């Protein structure tokens, strides 16, 4: 089954499912070449890959909430109780 897919070109529907493996660097050299050949020829898939990269950048902007002073204080008190036990 796999051999059959290796022999023909990647189609868009397959390419979008390879994007994460590609970004993670876990595709084989051969698969990487096939995907890159497809991306070079396919504007839609190239944009799709750019969108996934943009998505990752936006996700990187999502900060956790600031540590509330009373939470910090509560944890320091927890620490002192633990230490003094």
């Amino acid at each position, binding site marked *: 089954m796999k051999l059959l897919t290796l022999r023909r070109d990647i189609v868009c529907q397959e390419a979008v499912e390879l994007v994460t*493996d590609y970004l*993670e660097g876990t595709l084989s050299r051969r698969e990487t070449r096939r995907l890159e050949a497809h991306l070079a020829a396919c504007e839609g898939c190239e944009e*799709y890959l750019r*969108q996934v990269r943009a998505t990752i950048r936006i*996700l990187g902007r999502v900060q*956790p909430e600031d540590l509330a002073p009373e*939470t910090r204080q509560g*944890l320091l008190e927890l*620490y002192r109780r633990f230490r003094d036990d």
Partner: protein
Amino acid sequence: MSDDDLARRLRSGDESAFAEAVKTYHSSMVRLAQTFVSSRAVAEEVTQDTWLAVLKGIDRFEGRSSLKTWIFRILANRARSTGVREQRTIPVDVSAGATVDGRRFDAAGAWSDPPAHWSDEIVDRLSAGPLVAQVRAAMSELPEGQRAVVTLRDLDGLSSKEVCAVLEISEANQRVLLHRGRGRIRAFLEGELAKR
């Protein structure tokens, strides 16, 4: 300061080291815990229990993983079992595999409805807060496993190896969850940008 230094100071009972660890990790820990439990309050509780477990167990920390990975792993285990007790935890995602709606491709698998161009534009708008806030909200809609992996990888910046260690999943599983989670957030952004 390096992880090793921080671990050594924690072991020696240095309160400022504890304060520093709290400052560095607490908010991210609560965020990860929220993936598994029912409410913010429960997530805070689990995180507080984790700090106590960290203090009790720091002598056993051997530095084979980073301190961060070790702490997050304790947290993930506790949050997961709390989630199970709350009967909230839904076992592994068995959702369909496709990250893009199949109707957007023709019979041969080529785009019939290709993505509109917005990747450049969105990077320009990154400094705009509203979109980031919307993405934060969209994250909370992800299935548990996807949410945990995307949170650790893309929000907290852990490596794939660290994420596997924290969540006790295989590399292959990590990639699948990352792929689906990122795919859903991309689709969410696509929907938001189409509204304008």
